[in-house]
């Protein structure tokens, strides 16, 4: 058995989700090679070589991989796939885009967002927004897998001494062209990697009121999140959405303000270690999953919290 693990990185740093996917790969068993694809990835490749349990680091460096467009990234993975029984990646917007292509080109199914490894071919994954957990066995000769990072502990980023090899990059398809990015720039920790998350919902009321949550987040060194309702209302940008179709987070502390707790939101945060909910509606469903809850107006609670912490 051999696994090709597709690393998530930002060009400078290996993302923590990569280490969670590495744990899943270790549970599958066998040798692990890690693929680092991008335009300038030398620094990331050095970090990858230090990761525990990685035998080989494959470096695919080319300008056509700058934005890791699905067409180009999947062609690269396919060019390497012959040597591996498992192709594994942390689930993110790049791999969700590219991995089903890899599966289709290999004429196999894909296991999306696995949360548990039971054997090399049997896995657990959430269905129906996490309201049911399916145990599935892959019947294919190769397994293409995306991993829900929040469900796996991070493997050690130290202690390894993998060989680093450059690999050839197939020519870009030319059918898809990058035009522009509008990325949210923030000094706060990344939502999916943060130990603490402060999150707001429709109850926050406006874009301006989110400043209160930002103050609390900064006080706690937390990332800022939001419910779908808050994003749809235009209070914050789409990349802050926590839930079934947004980000899946599992921080040490998740603090929800003015979030009622639709099942689609709970699907994105119920694996947090400690959940705090503040809502003035005594019957808010989020209280059923909260470790501590306070029935109160968030506009009374937030200033007091910010002052006393």
């Amino acid at each position, binding site marked *: 058995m051999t696994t090709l693990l597709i690393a998530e990185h930002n060009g400078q740093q290996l993302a923590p989700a990569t280490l969670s996917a590495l744990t899943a790969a270790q549970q599958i068993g066998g040798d692990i090679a890690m693929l680092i694809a991008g335009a300038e990835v030398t620094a990331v490749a050095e970090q990858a070589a230090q990761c525990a349990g990685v035998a080989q680091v494959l470096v695919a460096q080319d300008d056509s991989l700058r934005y890791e467009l699905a*067409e180009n990234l999947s062609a690269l993975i396919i060019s390497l796939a012959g040597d591996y029984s498992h192709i594994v990646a942390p689930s993110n917007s*790049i791999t969700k885009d590219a991995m089903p292509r890899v599966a289709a080109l290999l004429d196999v199914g894909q296991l999306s967002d696995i949360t548990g490894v039971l054997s090399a071919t049997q896995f657990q994954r959430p*269905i129906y927004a996490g309201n049911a957990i399916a145990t599935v066995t*892959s019947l294919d000769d190769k397994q293409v897998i995306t991993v829900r990072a929040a469900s796996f502990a991070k493997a050690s980023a130290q202690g390894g001494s993998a060989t680093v090899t450059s690999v050839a990059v197939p020519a870009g398809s030319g*059918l898809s062209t990058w035009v522009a990015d509008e990325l949210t720039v923030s000094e706060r920790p990344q939502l999916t990697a943060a130990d603490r998350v402060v999150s707001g919902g429709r109850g926050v009321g406006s874009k301006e009121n989110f400043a209160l949550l930002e103050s609390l987040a900064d006080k706690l060194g937390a990332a800022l999140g939001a419910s779908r309702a808050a994003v749809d209302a235009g209070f914050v940008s789409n990349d802050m959405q926590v839930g079934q179709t947004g980000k899946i987070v599992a921080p040490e502390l998740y603090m929800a303000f003015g979030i009622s707790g639709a099942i689609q939101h709970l699907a994105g945060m119920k694996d947090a270690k400690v959940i705090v909910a503040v809502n003035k509606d005594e019957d808010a469903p989020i209280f059923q999953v909260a*470790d501590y809850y306070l029935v109160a107006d968030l506009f009374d609670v937030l200033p007091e919290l910010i002052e006393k912490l």
Partner: protein
Amino acid sequence: MKVLVGVKRVIDYNVKVRVKSDNTDVDLANTKMAMNPFCEIALEEAVRLKEAGVATEVIAVSVGTSASQEQLRAAMALGADRAILVETDEVAEPLHVAKAFAKLMEQEDIGLVMLGKQSIDSDNNQVGQMLAALTGRPQGTFASKVVVEGEQVTVTREIDGGLRTVRLALPAIVTADLRLNEPRFAKLPDIMKAKRKPLATTNFADLGVTVKQSMRLDRVDVPSVRSGGVKVESVDELISKLKDEAKVI
């Protein structure tokens, strides 16, 4: 330009799913079913393209049992011109659906495929990407804006860090995210009219698609439930619980 729209019959968005007591699957008997919400958004976009004179025909396609005719009729009430049911009694996996759509793309000379980014039952998020790979056409997944100009479509995509815009050569495959549009409701006259619109039925064999099972569902469990929370009465009590009991701050 003809637009193909995927329509999946799933449990209604507002219904809470139950797991069968023998853990073989979820229990959908006597459950309200509906069109997958992401498919509704994809359909709405296609209908708007037709209203804008960009699309000439909108074809709704579903892969499923004969019960999926209900969702195809609903799609025609919302503006699809005709519908095709790829009928199967087996659970269709994403790769099977993608292969069927690939055949239909070719047969119908499709210029744009609009799909939902995922279905709310299996949460796979695969069909659009698989279809693009099988047909060798470009893809714009998780779209929040779609602009067709000449032989190209410009798609703004929701990605982890914000938004990314890509330009794709047509024919292309686009999958809809939540904020692409707000779907309309069907009007009664349109529901009546939809009953007379053509609905063709085919199957995997007729399309020349070989179906090979990739996944076996072994069991389905109810997720572990968090134990009930502790109600606190004040901010001071909350802070002390977080410091002394939970030790997270």
